[in-house]
């Protein structure tokens, strides 16, 4: 086992916070974590995104990259470690959240863990992502696991409640023990080009987060155009977001490779200009192991190895884990597996 994850049970530092084993660099330059910088509107206005060209590049990523056998198994395990196992439904209940947490602690059955020889990895998902109402439940269920609890916040998914209540919601989730906050932006600010308003909003959210990591959900399915996505990405980064995230999972179209490519390129250029790293979280619609591999190839080729750590990369996913399990089962046994053979979350 080359990677000795810190044993979270005995460590005050959660397993997936920066461990120092992978320095965060881009083109050989060491980066520091993002913090708020003054809004530079010219950076937003200078953005050029050619939709057709982005789509062509995005389509070529799965075609140009293929990961097989042991490598594929390793990549799929990494996908699990970068997963925000999520439940965000109107019918969520405490028991449902506890089930999810149990799965997050033990994403793979023992026989798979043994067959893959990864007992020492103590593999868990990166986080569990729930509504505010279930933060305490999740924190309790995950106690001692090192798995972080992420709360969607700020009037998720539309983000149209009063600003004070949205800010207050963040505070309360943090108080309840959430160490990651997934905020949603006011999409209308983007449509109207109100960059100052958007910046102020995100900056206020970030401030409310305190020590908690903030992921800014741009609502890319609502923003619709890739230029809007790029502009919103830049403002969210300048306002201090730790991660930028595609969508709520509630939009008609959620995470796509073209949208991701645009956001990831924005992260890259932002890092080049500022020396600061921002993480990336695609969410919604990523359901298969194959998709997990595609997104990792995107991260690796466009940003590099550091963006395959849970500190800088997360999937928002619920059903993807099941498909990864089935693929790993096939890797181990050579037989194709069935969904019902794997414990649900």
């Amino acid at each position: 086992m080359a990677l000795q994850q810190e044993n979270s049970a005995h460590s005050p530092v959660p397993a997936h916070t920066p461990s120092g084993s992978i320095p965060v660099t881009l083109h050989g330059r060491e980066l520091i974590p993002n913090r708020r910088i003054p809004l530079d509107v010219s950076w937003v206005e200078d953005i050029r995104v050619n939709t057709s060209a982005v789509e062509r590049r995005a389509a070529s990523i799965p075609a140009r990259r293929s990961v097989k056998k042991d490598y594929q198994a390793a990549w799929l395990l990494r996908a699990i470690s970068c997963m925000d196992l999520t439940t965000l439904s109107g019918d969520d209940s405490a028991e449902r959240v506890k089930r999810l947490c149990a799965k997050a602690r033990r994403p793979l059955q023992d026989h798979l863990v043994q067959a893959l020889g990864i007992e020492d990895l103590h593999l868990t998902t990166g986080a569990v992502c729930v509504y505010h109402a279930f933060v305490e439940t999740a924190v309790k269920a995950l106690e001692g696991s090192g798995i972080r609890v992420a709360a969607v916040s700020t009037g998720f998914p539309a983000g149209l409640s009063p600003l004070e209540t949205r800010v207050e919601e963040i505070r309360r989730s943090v108080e309840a023990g959430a160490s990651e906050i997934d905020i949603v932006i006011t999409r209308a600010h983007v449509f109207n080009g109100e960059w100052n308003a958007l910046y102020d909003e995100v900056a206020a959210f970030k401030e409310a987060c305190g020590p908690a990591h903030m992921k800014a959900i741009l609502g890319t399915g609502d923003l619709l155009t890739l230029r809007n996505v790029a502009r919103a990405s830049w403002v969210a980064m300048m306002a201090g977001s730790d991660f930028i995230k595609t969508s709520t999972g509630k939009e008609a179209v959620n995470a796509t490779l073209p949208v991701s490519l645009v956001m990831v390129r924005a992260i890259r250029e932002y890092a080049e200009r500022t020396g600061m790293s921002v993480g990336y979280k695609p969410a919604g619609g990523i359901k298969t192991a194959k998709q997990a591999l595609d997104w990792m190839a995107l991260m690796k080729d466009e940003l590099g190895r550091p963006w395959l750590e849970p500190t800088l990369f997360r999937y928002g996913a619920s059903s993807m884990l099941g498909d990864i399990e089935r693929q790993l089962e096939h890797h181990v046994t050579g037989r194709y597996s069935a969904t019902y053979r794997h414990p649900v979350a």
Partner: protein
Amino acid sequence: MEKFQSMEYGPAPEDASGVMQWLDAHGRWFGHYIDGAFTKSSAAKFESKNPATGELLASIAQGEAADVDRAVKAARAALPAWQALTGHQRARYLYAFARQVQKHARKLAVLETLDNGKSIRETRDIDIPLVARHFYYHAGWAQLLGDVTDNGYTGDTDLKGYAPVGVVGQIIPWNFPLLMFAWKVAPALATGNTVVIKPAEFTPLTAMLFAEIADEIGLPKGVLNVVNGDGATGAAIVGHPDVDKIAFTGSTEVGRIIRKATANTTKKLSLELGGKSPFIVFDDADLDSAVEGLVDGIWFNQGQVCCAGSRLLVQESVAERLYDKIRARMETLRIGSPLDKAIDIGAIVDQVQHDRITKLVAMGVAEGATCWQPEIAVPTKGLFFKPTLLTNVHPSSTVAQEEIFGPVLAAMTFRTPAEAVELANNTAYGLAACVWSENVNVALDVAAQMKAGVVWVNATNVFDAAVGFGGYRESGYGREGGVEGLYEYLEPAWVKSEPKMFASIDEKQVLRSAQDDNSGVDDHIEGALGIDRTVKNYINGKQARPDSGYSYAVHDRNGKVVGEAPVGSRKDIRNAVEAARAASAKWGKTTAHGRAQILYYLAENLLPRRGEIVAHLADFVGPEQAAVEFDATIERIFSYAAWTDKYEGTVHNPPFRMVSVAMKEAIGTVGILAPDDAPLLGLMSLILPAIAMGNAVIAVPSERCATLMSDLYQALDTSDVPAGVVNLVAGKASELGKTLAEHDDVDAVWCFRDETASSMVKLGSIGNLKQTWTNEGRVIDWFDPARGEGRWFLRHATQVKNIWVPYGE
């Protein structure tokens, strides 16, 4: 699990065992496919190797002249039955090809990758799907063209009345072996021709697998013949007297050899040659996407792509930023086993090519370029060449002028759009161009100004069967794909049956030197008692005395001197070409409506001179023909005035979210050698379509009747035809024609004289590989509008530029 930590891609090899079995089943020995049979008759053989490993794949027979002869005979013999099929029946064969290619797609892709060294990603996702698409598309044309009759195709298309040329010889390169095979074979068969094709000697294997497919689908024997071999085999095809047309894709150098070898024949010729295509990036481009465009451009197929965006022209203000992005991207390119599914760059096809790339890069560095290559892993075995960026390159650098045909990008900067256009067009080639800008005004304006047959706006190397591909300038002529590509395999059904012209009347009889004339006792000019009338050349909108200072007597049909015409020389042609070049840019941009108005005005100004001109013309052709000829000329002017804004481009419909605008552009400067029969109508039948489409012409009128020029230029002068658009130089057609044909600033020469003149023009054209169009010495009935005017002429007066415009926000 250290792989969990390293997160490397690891090997992802495509299984080649099925293809290896196929090779073994053939004893790793391939001959030819002639007359429906696989032969191994040739004793001599050569080897086909996997360039990624050096492993021997198979031995291949070297086709001899006898093999070629058998293949041509088989193709000739198969022709009547093939053409007797209905369009629908031909369509079924092409459709069967498309289906079979799809069914065996992976086998073809793996074999191609083994033989060529290109990545399996490209053969699997690009080459083979395009092969299938090409057959689908052309199955459609076979269906729509319909049956082949003596009067041409029966189907309801623009090609009604055209007919297949017959037996087609095709020679293809190694960079896209099966795709080039499809580009050649599909349109030829769809149009009812039969084929003898020679694959490249480096990459013959997929053609043999394709021949098996032909066998499987029951293609009638002799319709498709594949002869393997090297340049000597190709030369045998080119030189075979019973081949009606040669289609060649390959180097400009070999293109010249073929033009020369076929100059003395009536073989139709299309050439798709080299390129040094500009890749222009403006400061308002999506730079990250432009970088990916380069990956698809110069690092596609190891840069062994004739239309590769090999010359990067970037606006100064963003140059360093773009170079940084390019270098960063190059670090993530993966080079290695072409069968690996996670590889971007495979192997160079052969040691010869590897050596050439190495040499040219070294030369670039020696000339001052900065060479940069990424620190990426490269296999120690096999022919691999790292992606390379050359900066500090200038237009005068060898690497900016010569086609490298490797993964080498030469970068230069520009300041303004005008400079970008100038630099982009500063090349002898003209195959493709890329324009990257988010400003639609800039992008389309620059695209329109590119001297290239294919322009991609914010895209690179996108291909489709529905969209013509082919070059301007020394990148060749003819198109492949789209309706524009079909014409290369057709001609008007009536042409072949026209009688041959007698050799033009001995020039010595017609054109005597002034000294000779002075000795002639009977040669008194009629009307000499009036005011002497001097006929001059007409250059740049002015009457110009011939540089020679000589004139010659022009005789009427009874041998009586009716006037004197200037003896034009090389220098007059030089001046006329300069004038035409200068005029062509502006004339080409004049609106079609504007050009139409000028043509109508010309007719308006000629008509009042009817009596005078008919009288002059009657001296040469008699009064009856003169009157008819004059009236037909006026009508012809009206026809072409009408055509100017009606011979329009097409919007192709490729299966992408893009439009491809097939613009019919003027060729530029056109030299015209006019016939002696119908001296006015013949001359004008050639000048009019050329200028209607925006070309500037240098015309040599019939030397027998050259005094007619003065009637013409007086009308031109008064009709607002801009100076230099029509230039007239009288004199010996053979000498002036040769100067025109050899002039590197003339873009096309049309010759409608005897066979000797046709050959002379073709031979002279090899310098800049200008387009030539001749009557092959046949008599054209200029009085018949169905033959003497219309689309046949307009098509030769234009070249198709396809501008690909993706859209979507």
